[in-house]
């Protein structure tokens, strides 16, 4: 067990340090706090708290932050030629995959903390309800897990994972998922949104069309995120075993 836990923890901590010490991490903190900073500029109500949280944080800032972070998790190991330090070691490749995925999720949560806490405090102050932040927190975890699951393996094989991710968010999730029935179910931030809507008692009218054909539900969203994570670990392990790390 020690032969798994200690190396896994070491990989997790090392990737976490590397991801959080990048210059872009500061920009990501600001991006995920933008919705909270915007809330400071107007009279906050429960409705516009939810609109800004959904429209700016859950649907835009968090997906972009997650895909940039996830793409760099193993992508940076590959482009900076540090992969041999992980792979020329007597440890199973799935351990590298699991540690990387966890590091990506925790990094996304870490850079989003300021925005979440600030928005939570502002929402509680404006509405008098200390629980306004819970749906946002749960949705954040689901979205972080979902995008990390997809973009950790993509970062391993594609040099331009951020561009691929932006195209995916803009074209697939932004346009196609809105107009084609059934595609919304593959939209990761919408999966998080179903949990947010479920825990928060629905979405305000101005943003309720974002759910498209999906229905609110927390259990289903968590199941989908965990399934994506399991699939991601399988795919990343396979890639680490089969692809040449030349």
């Amino acid at each position, binding site marked *: 067990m020690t*032969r798994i836990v200690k*190396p896994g923890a070491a990989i997790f901590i090392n990737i976490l340090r590397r991801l959080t010490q990048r210059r872009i991490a500061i920009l990501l903190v600001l991006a995920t706090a933008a919705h909270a900073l915007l809330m400071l500029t107007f009279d906050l109500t429960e409705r516009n708290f939810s609109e800004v949280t959904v429209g700016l944080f859950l649907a835009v800032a968090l997906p972009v932050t997650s895909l940039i972070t996830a793409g760099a998790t193993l992508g940076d190991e590959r482009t900076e030629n*540090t992969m041999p*330090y992980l*792979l*020329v070691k007597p440890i199973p490749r799935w351990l590298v995959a699991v540690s990387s995925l966890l590091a990506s999720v925790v990094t996304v949560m870490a850079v989003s903390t300021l925005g979440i806490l600030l928005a939570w405090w502002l929402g509680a102050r404006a509405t008098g309800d200390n629980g306004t932040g819970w749906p946002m927190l749960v949705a954040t975890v689901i979205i972080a897990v979902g995008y990390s699951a997809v973009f950790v393996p993509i970062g391993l094989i594609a040099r331009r994972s951020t561009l691929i991710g932006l195209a995916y968010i803009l074209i697939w999730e932004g346009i196609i998922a809105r107009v084609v029935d059934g595609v919304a179910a593959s939209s990761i931030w919408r999966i998080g949104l179903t949990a947010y809507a479920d825990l928060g008692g629905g979405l305000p009218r101005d943003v309720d069309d974002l759910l498209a054909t999906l229905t609110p539900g927390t259990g289903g969203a968590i199941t989908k995120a965990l399934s994506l994570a399991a699939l991601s670990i399988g795919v990343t392990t396979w890639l680490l075993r*089969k692809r040449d790390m030349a």
Partner: protein
Amino acid sequence: MTIPDTTTVSVENVSKWFGQKVAVSEVTSVFGPGVTGLLGPNGAGKTTLLRMMTGLVRPSEGRITIEGIDPHDDYRALNAVGFVAEDEAVYKHLTARKFVRFNAVLAGVADPESDTERVIELVDLQGAADRPVGGFSKGMRQRTKVAAALVHRPRVLLLDEPLNGADPVQRSHLIDLFKTLGARGYTVIVSSHVLHEVERMADRIIAITDGRLAASGDVRSLRALMTDIPQTIRIDADKPRILAAALISTPYASGVKLENDTIHVEAADPAGLARAIAHLARQHGVIVRRIQPEDESLESVFSYLVHRR
């Protein structure tokens, strides 16, 4: 192929191609305790061969085993392997001590702290161990990487151009270290494109060019092969035709060619030819502006070895 009992690394008819490019072609060799130099010009296939030994790259054909286990299919083979990659890549945010310790933990070392201190001392990095590796010179990074590769006491040490960037003192120190490890029974495989470096540390040399095994043997036998290489010397003089005619009549030149007023002499006896040039130039009143050997690059040595196979 019969594999001797002492074999730790076995390479059996291994080829590797990336798309249309053949990086390694039908290489067969076995390695055991001691230092083996993997010698070849840049792009010869040394790095690809070493990376196949680590399991980072899968052979397109053939089989590589470390102590009988395929490192690409079974990570347990890597218990025995320490690897220093050619590039300068390190985790720049870590100090040397943390970097080595990280490698120790991943390798499953029982007491990472004491083994980290042991190898830091071994590569003489005590004074810089708490500085971030990102700020290190190339030579210091190499020593840090060597320490990280040695921390779990691997029985097989694969070193890809480990002396790159090291200053002469560091080079000497690392060469002594590799020789000591080889003498203690480690299998040390060191790649280099610098012949005299490999000569200083390796008991055996494997010469590779264009992905193929060009020659293999101890240093003395490879040297003997290389002394057979005819040397071509280029001479610029004010009266090239007169000097060329005079040189052709000496026993020191096996061939003389005149191209654009430059003499190209194939030397049968380079030392005798050097003396003859001076003597003949004086005798015929020729001013010699430049004498330059044309064939001293490692590439030409390898080209010769390949073509004579």
